[in-house]
């Protein structure tokens, strides 16, 4: 049995490879092989945390370790090795009550490392990324590389350190798969059948490139990228705590989408969100951007202690900032120095002090149980596009007014003008139309939370995170000590949020190199389903070192040198051969690289929640591509908000085109996330989410089978297929497959589908009332020219095809 062999191979090899992965037989690397062991098993008591350091021993610092317990080159003389191998339970490290244990393999590695001289290395993530020379192309792969990324991948595959033999990369993905992949990765939507066909006809490099550029310049690109960013910064429509009321923040979402579409440099994107209000003559967009500092969960629950919640908010901001930009887990330092990384508690509160000027006290008093609640300061804004449109409309109005002269009615005059009163009146009509448009645009103003700086409050270091304890020292805004090259606050000259933002993206006097690495690693993840370093949100000692450190460095350097150009970065990656490989496995690849760390193939994974929705709507033709604006509410099982109090509320699904808009615009209720989003692993956005889990639960199956959005889409798609003129049944089946999967069904699939159609016809012929009901689901009017039973039959088929693994998988 092929499957059996296959599964056996995977499982056994997965286990074997796990053990081997870090135990290469050639030279050991401290960062790659040793530090992870020390970090996980030893640093807890012998690491950066000063208050928890046992026996005054630090193993994370070379001088301390060598002075105390390591004799380089001589494991027999080294107390470190003696203690970890001791037969005496009292002696042996780590002690049993630590819950930690070294494996035999780990002990061997440590011993070898000491024998080889116990060489330490500076921690990779905190070193400035440097541009590495491109490796030579292995002769066997002369033709393979397309761009410089491939040079690193090829080199590694050729000299595979793990297995002492070369691996071959996969061939180019077939054109349809490639175009579909690219389209999802860059826009979150499937391609059109025409786009796929065009590329199939001429799968040339030029055509591919043109298609890439078309996608990058589409509005859909910003929407796709924004979904990920909104996960990171925990964007949601509600406050999270207690009554989970709505708060005003959707203009921030528009800002993020616009920024990706306008290709706003990432360093500027950073500045505007953290400190847009502090920029000279800040624009409306820059003010909207500062909603970033306000998006955390807030509470006005009766009885909250202001001081406690101020401490909670501050900690939330430091956690998020450090995750989003620095790939750091600074949350650990709220109560104690970090156990694994050199961040101290003082660093934590000093970072918190950057936000001491955020005006937010008012909501404890004025926060209401209304929908939305009140979270001042808020400003009322138009979206960027509406502002532009309004400008154009106003200019046209002025022009018309000049043309019309005295004939122009006053703006507030009764709009009912005599419409059919001669030639000059076309201008009057135009004026009226423009004035109405102006009104319409102006009425679309929305409130949004922003940051306004006030006199900073006093921030104290809270001993063990206890907000009741006022004994801690007062701290000023300061950057983490070990990462900082000089800037610091003094009482007269306090660093600001703007200084912080600049520091984050400054490659020479700040940590721009780290920030760039963190971001490009995440772009890579979006395009490969896994990062170059797998820990997308932890570049600290407990994270995973990158498998291709030089590649990551060069990407980071290009990102910085290219002016933090996101589109360029993504373009570079998708133009590589590595990206364009097939995602199908070979047994060799499974054996040697089960986690695809070497990128000798592409990845396949279930689409994220929003893409599943968007794809279904797109295929059916229902998708409405309106851009930006307030959140929308698709169908949702009634009573789902029954548990929400303060106030009680009822979910009112959209009755207009909002019903079929993209997933990114869905109302994000933190406590009761829409069941479709929840079942397909979208996060509740309480904390920074850099990587969504991918689960397969029955609840997800039930959503995709039964949620009216999906049933309606199946019916509308069935109508579309049945309304095609002059097709026989077999051709219609082909159409279903082509428009969903960009391929024709094979013989076996045809048989299965034929059987289904026949059986369904019988069943619906016997139960016409069922056909009637099924085809009435959803707001979209049913086509009345089609036979209802036949429509029901094809709806059932479409529903099955929408649920195919192949349909909801990005390959």
């Amino acid at each position, binding site marked *: 049995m092929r499957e059996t062999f296959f599964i056996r191979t995977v499982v056994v090899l997965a286990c074997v490879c796990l053990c081997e992965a870090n135990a290469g037989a050639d030279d050991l690397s401290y960062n790659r092989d040793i530090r992870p062991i020390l970090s996980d098993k030893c640093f807890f008591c012998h690491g950066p945390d000063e208050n928890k350091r046992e026996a005054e021993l630090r193993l994370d610092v070379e001088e301390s370790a060598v002075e105390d317990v390591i004799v380089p080159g001589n494991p027999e003389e080294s107390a470190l090795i003696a203690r970890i191998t001791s037969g005496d339970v009292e002696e042996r490290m780590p002690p049993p009550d630590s819950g930690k244990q070294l494996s035999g393999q780990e002990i061997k590695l440590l011993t070898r490392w000491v024998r080889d001289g116990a060489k330490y290395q500076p921690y990779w993530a905190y070193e400035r990324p440097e541009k590495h020379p491109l490796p030579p192309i292995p002769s066997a792969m002369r033709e393979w590389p397309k761009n410089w990324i491939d040079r690193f991948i090829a080199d590694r595959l050729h000299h595979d350190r793990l297995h002492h033999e070369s691996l071959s990369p996969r061939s180019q993905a077939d054109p349809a798969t490639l175009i579909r992949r690219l389209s999802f990765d860059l826009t979150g939507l499937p391609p059109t059948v025409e786009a796929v066909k065009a590329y199939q006809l001429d799968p040339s490099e030029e055509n591919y490139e043109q298609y890439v550029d078309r996608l990058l310049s589409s509005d859909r690109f910003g929407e796709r990228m924004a979904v990920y960013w909104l996960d990171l910064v925990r964007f949601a429509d509600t406050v999270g705590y207690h009554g989970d009321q709505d708060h005003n923040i959707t203009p921030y979402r528009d800002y993020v989408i616009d920024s990706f579409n306008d290709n706003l440099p990432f360093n500027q994107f950073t500045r505007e969100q953290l400190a847009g209000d502090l920029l000279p003559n800040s624009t409306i967009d820059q003010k909207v951007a500062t909603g970033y500092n306000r998006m955390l969960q807030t509470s006005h629950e009766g009885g909250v202690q202001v001081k406690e919640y101020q401490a909670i908010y501050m900690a939330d901001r430091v956690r998020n900032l450090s995750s989003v930009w620095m790939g750091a887990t600074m949350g650990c330092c709220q109560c104690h120095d970090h156990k694994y990384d050199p961040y101290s508690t003082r660093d934590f509160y000093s970072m918190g002090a950057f936000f001491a000027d955020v005006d937010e006290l008012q909501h404890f008093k004025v926060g209401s149980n209304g929908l939305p609640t009140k979270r001042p300061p808020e400003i009322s804004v138009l979206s960027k596009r509406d502002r532009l449109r309004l400008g154009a409309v106003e200019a046209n109005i002025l022009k018309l007014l000049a043309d019309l002269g005295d004939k122009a009615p006053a703006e507030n005059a009764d709009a009912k003008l005599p419409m059919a009163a001669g030639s000059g009146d076309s201008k009057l009509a135009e004026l009226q139309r423009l004035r109405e448009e102006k009104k319409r645009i102006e009425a679309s103003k929305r409130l949004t939370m922003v940051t306004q700086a006030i006199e900073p409050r006093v921030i104290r270091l809270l001993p063990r995170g206890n907000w009741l304890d006022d004994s801690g020292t007062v701290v000023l805004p300061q950057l983490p000590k070990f990462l900082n090259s000089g800037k610091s606050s003094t009482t007269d000259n306090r660093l600001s949020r703007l200084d912080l933002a600049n520091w984050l993206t400054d490659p020479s006097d700040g940590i721009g190199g780290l920030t760039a690495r963190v971001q490009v690693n995440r772009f890579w993840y979006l395009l490969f389903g896994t990062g170059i370093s797998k820990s997308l949100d932890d570049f600290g000692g407990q994270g995973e070192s990158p498998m291709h450190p030089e590649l990551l460095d060069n990407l980071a350097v290009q990102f910085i040198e290219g002016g933090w150009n996101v589109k360029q970065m993504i373009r570079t990656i998708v133009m590589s051969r590595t990206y364009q490989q097939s995602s199908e496995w070979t047994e060799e690849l499974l054996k040697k690289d089960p986690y695809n760390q070497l990128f000798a193939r592409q990845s396949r994974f279930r689409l994220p929640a929003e893409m599943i929705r968007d794809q279904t709507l797109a295929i059916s033709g229902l998708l409405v591509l309106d851009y930006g604006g307030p959140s929308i509410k698709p169908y949702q099982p009634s009573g789902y908000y029954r548990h929400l109090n303060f106030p009680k509320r009822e979910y009112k699904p959209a009755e207009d085109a909002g019903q079929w808009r993209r997933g990114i615009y869905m109302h994000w209720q933190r406590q009761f996330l829409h069941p479709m989003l929840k079942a397909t692993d979208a996060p509740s956005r309480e904390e920074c989410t850099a990587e969504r889990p991918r689960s397969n639960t029955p609840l997800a199956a*039930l959503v995709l089978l039964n949620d009216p959005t999906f049933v309606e889409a199946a019916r509308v798609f069935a109508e579309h297929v049945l309304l095609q003129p002059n097709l026989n049944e077999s051709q219609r089946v082909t159409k279903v497959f082509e428009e969903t999967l960009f391929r024709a069904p094979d013989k076996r699939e045809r048989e299965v589908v034929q059987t289904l159609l026949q059986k369904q016809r019988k069943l619906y012929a016997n139960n016409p009332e069922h056909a009637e009901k099924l085809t009435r689901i959803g707001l979209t009017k049913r086509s009345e020219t089609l036979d209802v039973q036949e429509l029901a039959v094809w709806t059932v088929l479409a529903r099955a095809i929408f649920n195919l693994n192949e349909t909801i998988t990005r390959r």
Partner: protein
Amino acid sequence: MRRGVDAMINHTRREFLNTTASGIGMAALGSMLTHDGLFSRATGAEQTVGPSAAVNPLAARPAHFEAKAKACIFIFMAGAPSHLDLFDPKPVLKERHGQPLPESMLKDVRFAFIKKDKALLQGSPFKFTKHGECGMELSELLPHLGGVSDELLLVRSLHTDQFNHHPGQLMMQCGRGTFGLPTMGSWLTYGLGSVSKNLPGYVVLTSGRGSSGGATLWQSGFLSSTYAGVLFRNRGEPVLNLANPQGIPVELQREGLDVLRHTNQQRYAEVHDPEIAARIASYELAYRMQTAAPELTDLSGESQATHEAYGLDRPEPKDLNGRGKQGDTYKSFARNCLLARRMVERGVRFVNIVYASWDHHSNIPKELPYNAGCVDRPIAALIRDLKARGLLDSTMVVWGSEFGRTPLGENRNGKREVGSGRDHHPYSFSMVMAGGGLKGGQVYGATDEIGWNAAENRVHVNDLHATMLHQFGLNHLKLTARYQGRDFRLTDVGGNVIPQWIA
């Protein structure tokens, strides 16, 4: 390990080849295939609990050591019932009714609403009587629980770190009062898997009005949603989207699923993506749930005696007004208790019954009897029923909330008067437990004479969780999951198993 892996593979294969009958087995395989359909690195639980978790996160798997409990019914009284009026008789408090507290006691204390300079002590208006052979003293509001007192472990010395509802509720469910962490039920299914073939391993039932914490009280936090609680609703279809769309009767659903399965299977044979097998299984389990869930919630097969014992048909008391009164709260709570038993019988690992609200800032004499009356009889019936069916030894029943209520009367208006309600109180509260290998018929711990602080044998929420896990054969220090570089556990950085609780 090798042997274990082979057994797993054979099991997997059997299930795959026989998908229509496959158990929850492969259902969540895919969640482990985190990146592109291959197995993720072992997490804390896999390392400590066994290799099978690497293939199927919900496969039942062995505990760290022999377990006494197999299932837990956690009855969560959201809003915080007054321990002083239900479980913890304080004659001295009664004597000092109407007196202020000495200033020294109030110095470092904060309240949600009480204006402390004017607040006065408030004795309980309710009588306490002794019950059972153990002589457990309980309030007159809990006569039925009194009837099973010899099964009960009453803990009077709990304390917590949080004193607002939502963080407090998170603390009780997650071991820490912050967002984004897995709840108790998630940890148990993560550690032990589930033996239920047709139902989720972690189910949530609710009565009364919504709680502050909402769905965060059954979230899986940073763990995969495989481990999140599934809400069984008491109105409408029992599980969201469970019912077929109108116009797709059961026989039609099967047809559509068959196409799905055939096509997916064929694809699987071609590309060998185990994710496909996992997806097939998840659809099959969904299909079985469509039958199993309505069967579960159909109580018509239960005897009249059972209906009566649980108080399934009780109307809402006309003369009592209480929080959470919604017209059918008495019935729905009783029903949830009976459903919990039926779920446990069907292999569900963790049932969380959430009942809100007990937030009696005022009107305790009138409102507390309503809430107590709602829960007293069904819970006692549940304990008796489990016992009669031989399930109590392996089923842990826990009655608890996020914190207690103040010995001071609430005077939100700032007046010097006793009032009729009590404010939030994290320094002491009571919980009741039964079954699951716990030693019943005992009162553990005590508060000081006015019920202010947990004074004797203090129990932190982390200790409670450590002991609960222990009964399930899990060492709370070893049941960990790595998130952002740290090994998290249900007991955060605390937790001591309490040997006196264990039978």
